[in-house]
């Protein structure tokens, strides 16, 4: 079979992209001894001990549980807040609406590190430190503006006449919103949820600063694996592989919506 030149480029590019992921999987299936011994393209003696460690040690698997909890809370809060806000921005003209819209977006321009200290102090003093809601709330600072921005683009694409027709037909606002409007922008909600999820899932600094034990995230757990016997490379690699999986799953489920979202909205 002949492979054309453009296909070769594609294959090389994909190999290039997949290499780090492959290496991570490769490492996760090796023992620490083998990782440190030297270069080997594939595991000489495949072992699942690293994964077993994660699934049996609560300090590891609770990291995933905690992360998932606050990511889900964050996504729900962000969408709940952003949907009405985006609707207002897309449908009504009010004083300073454009400025407010831009100001919302400008929240994203500061790096999360800037807010680590104030959040830490604030949450400590009100007793929110080391809770899931603390991380979820901190992340909404970044996710709500993004969610409003993306959703507004989708909502703007829905003609206002649909709202009016629904009111004329007798729909109240909430009924119209839930029954007619939300299905119309389902793709946008999917895309928004995906971005909220992704930000919150990979964000390290805030989640690490705001948690200690009870709500410790997987990202924080992974940065604290140095023990007396040195770095546990194999377990760390296995944790990395497991961290990629939820993201990959989410992308898989919303892939069609995202493609649509890129075409329609302002992602």
């Amino acid at each position, binding site marked *: 079979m002949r492979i054309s030149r453009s296909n070769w480029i594609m294959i090389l590019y994909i190999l290039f992209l997949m290499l780090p992921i492959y290496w991570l999987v490769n490492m996760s299936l090796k023992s620490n001894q083998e990782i440190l011994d030297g270069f080997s393209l594939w595991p000489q003696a495949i072992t699942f001990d690293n994964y077993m460690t994660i699934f049996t040690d609560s300090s590891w698997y609770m990291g995933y549980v905690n992360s998932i909890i606050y990511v889900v809370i964050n996504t729900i809060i962000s969408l709940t807040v952003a949907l009405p806000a985006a609707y207002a921005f897309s449908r009504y003209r009010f004083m300073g609406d454009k400025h407010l819209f831009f100001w919302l977006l400008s929240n994203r321009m500061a790096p999360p590190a800037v807010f680590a200290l104030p959040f830490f102090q604030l949450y400590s003093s009100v007793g929110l430190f080391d809770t899931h809601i603390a991380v979820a709330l901190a992340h909404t600072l970044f996710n709500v503006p993004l969610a409003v921005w993306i959703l507004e683009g989708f909502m703007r694409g829905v003609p206002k*006449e*649909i709202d*009016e027709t629904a*009111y*004329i*037909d*007798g729909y*109240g606002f909430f*009924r119209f919103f839930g029954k007619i409007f939300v299905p*119309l922008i389902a793709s946008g909600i999917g895309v928004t949820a995906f971005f909220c999820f992704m930000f919150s899932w990979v964000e390290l600094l805030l989640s690490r600063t705001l948690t200690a034990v009870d709500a410790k995230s997987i990202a924080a757990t992974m940065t604290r694996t140095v023990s007396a016997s040195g770095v546990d490379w194999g377990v760390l690699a296995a944790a990395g592989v497991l961290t990629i999986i939820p993201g990959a799953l989410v992308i898989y489920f919303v892939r069609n919506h995202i493609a649509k979202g890129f075409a329609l909205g302002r992602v």
Partner: protein
Amino acid sequence: MSLQLENVSLTVNGQPHIHPSHLNLAAGSMNVLLGPTLSGKTSLMRLMAGLDMPSTGKILWRGDDVTGVKVQKRDIAMVYQQFINYPSMTVFENIASPLRLRKKPESEIITAVKKTADLLKLGAFLQKKPLELSGGQQQRCALARALVKQSGLVLLDEPLANLDYKLREELRTEIPKMFADSGAVFVYATTEPEEALLLGGNTVTLWQGAITQFDTSTRVYHRPKNLVTANVFSSPPMNFLDAEKEGLLISLGENSYNPLDPGHIKLTAGVYRVGFRPNHLMLEPKNSESLRFSTILKSTEITGSETFLHLQHQQQHWVSLLHGIHHLTPGVSIDVFVDPAHLYFFDAMGQTAALATYTQSLKSV
């Protein structure tokens, strides 16, 4: 009277969109809002619907003041120029939705939807989504939703403007029939004078946010109260030229004549603007009184059975609408003729000073 607008106006950001207007629309009547784009048809309709609040004035529905009443509480149905349906619902659910909101029993909903869908030839598409249908079918779906509601006030905002010619003609004859038995007040916005005449009923002519005349369509067409109305209700627009009356003599362009029509004899001396419709501008004199104008032919447009001549008469641009096909070379000077009986005289304020005398012999007006 079923729907009354009393001194209703709309001002947005200091700009008058609708000037204070009075209007009485009777139950069971078809009322056409006729005017060019941006003349305020949609604004007026939105005020009637309650989608916008008037800046001044009152809106009465069957005698009750409904000015501040929410849209949901009003007894109206509206169809837009764009094809507006609920994309996530099937055609059946689209049509059923106003009934569902009224908590009608399921069996009643099914019968009503089926009946309406059959009337609008949507019977075969009930399980499809609106976006899978053609444009004409989508608009039928919107019409069905308006029809099934059996509202007292039906607002149709250029419902056929986005459809192709064939469908438009077909639906134009169907729409009045469909809603005829309901006894509702119909308001139908359009930019096309022919549509107003074809739909019958009454016509409200609009110009720059003001109602210029309201009467039965044929009366408005034949007896415009002012120049603006005459121009709005003429497609292509009326042809105009200046005239002066001194004593009994009327001088009109290169013509001077002693009028025979009593209406024209009675005109006081002074300056007038004279208008006549393109179909009254002919290549042959109709009778011995016909006035002759020498013009230069700018261009011709030939549609299947009619010819439009674009003419230059001194500073004026005129259009002549002729039956049949006439092949003429642009650039030549030709003589055209108008029967004085077809002339409308408008005074300096734009008010009608004398109607075209041919209209007096028309029985319908």
